[in-house]
């Protein structure tokens, strides 16, 4: 993952205006697009943590707050920039700002692990990732990893224990939220590319 920025280019006409750089490293626009998604992720992360107490009481809470909404944004970000490292950068931005801000630094682990998994998929299946059938396996891993990290790492490190009969049904339930989130994210990413290029 290179953080080198694109050299300054002269854009003489609208036709030459390549916004999302096809180069393997991040262009200035890539960096700013990731930051923008990061801002949205921060807002959603803060909302998620504000409602975190409620999410502990209501069974549906974690799936909505920690999978659906963040999932849409992270997949939209990855599908817009389409470079390995995007999801990790996004996750780092969101977790380093939003999580300590709301007093939940342990969530940094969950965000970064999910970002790394999405980037792993991007590296492994390359451009096939940006299709319905490419993004569904990534969303599946994202959803399973998310719930396991939530129960065993984040809540586990917080001293909270949950029996297996809570964790096991949570996995398919989390996938019910993770897969649509990835598909919506992909759709938004495709539209965003059109918006940037147009």
């Amino acid at each position, binding site marked *: 993952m290179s*953080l*080198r*920025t*694109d*050299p*300054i280019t002269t854009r003489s006409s609208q036709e030459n205006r390549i*916004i999302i750089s096809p180069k393997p490293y*991040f262009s*200035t*626009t890539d*960096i*700013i*697009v*990731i*930051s*923008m*998604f*990061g*801002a*949205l*992720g*921060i*807002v959603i992360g*803060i*909302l998620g943590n504000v409602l*975190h*107490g*409620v999410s*502990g*009481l209501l069974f549906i809470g974690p799936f909505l707050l920690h999978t659906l909404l963040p999932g*849409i*944004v992270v997949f*939209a970000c990855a599908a*817009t920039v389409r470079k390995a490292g995007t999801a990790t*950068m996004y996750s780092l*931005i*969101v977790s*380093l*700002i939003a999580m*300590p*801000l*709301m*007093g*939940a*630094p*342990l969530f940094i682990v969950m965000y970064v692990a999910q970002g790394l998994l999405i980037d792993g998929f991007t590296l492994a299946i390359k451009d096939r990732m940006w299709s319905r059938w490419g993004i569904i396996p990534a969303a599946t891993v994202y959803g399973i990893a998310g719930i396991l990290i939530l129960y065993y790492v984040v809540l586990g490190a*917080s*001293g*909270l*224990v*949950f*029996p297996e*009969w*809570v964790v096991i049904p949570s996995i398919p339930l989390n996938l019910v939220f993770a897969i649509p989130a990835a598909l*919506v994210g992909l759709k*938004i990413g495709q*539209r*965003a590319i059109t*918006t*940037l290029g147009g």
Partner: protein
Amino acid sequence: MRLLRLGDDPIFQFVDGDTAVHRLDPRTKILWLGIVTVLAVFIHRPDLLLTLFFLTLVPLAISRVPMYQLRLILFFYAFIFIGTTISQGFFYQPLTGPPPDVLFWIISPDMPFLGAFTGGVSFTLQGALYGFIQGFRILSMLNASVTLVMTTPVNRIMAGLRELRLPFTFMFMLTTAVRFVPTIIEEYRTIANALKVRGVAKNPLRLVQYSMSPLILNSVRRCSQLALAAESRAFGSLADRTYYTSVKFGTGDRVSWICIGISSVLLVWLSLAG
């Protein structure tokens, strides 16, 4: 940190002041947050968790939290205590020793299917007490986070992270993301108002569903303009940069390091001692 407001309810935000904690280098407060997080994860004795909680209250008390922020902190305290007490009241099972005393059952072990699947779900006093104590673990991290956020403006936090040798591009991304937050919130309000006027969004979930796509696309459109502006200012062309905000360690930081060091070593030692 005034920009990190959602709706009209303030989230933890920077409160200007001239206390000893305000004057500390942001790196010291970041170090404090890191150490408290590690200690909160590894300490298991209830008395030490309580000690850690009270230790994290000290810088918060020195920083003279205004009443409206104190109310918000207490609101979070209540939420966390209720959440951990209720969830562990239902789910806690001791690894050793006798089974906890059941106060009431919500799923009896005799119940068909669910009873067999879960083994019965009951609310236990030991579980509730265990959850209540674990709440102090989360609150210690919350206190350290709030201390950092409420006593350090964003630009100084960024400067502190920069001095911790984070790559410049990543720092730029963090700064830009923080800068984008109020823009995103403003954009969301505009879209939500438009949807309300059209009678689309009486349901809050529907409101989020319909506003997500235009919100992202409008923001992405803005990104291309910002990228052009950044490139026209030679973004990324110079290896050596100068910064407007600088941070420096002072006597207060050194005193803080000693206090953090002594208290951490004591807590770890007591924790290991049993």
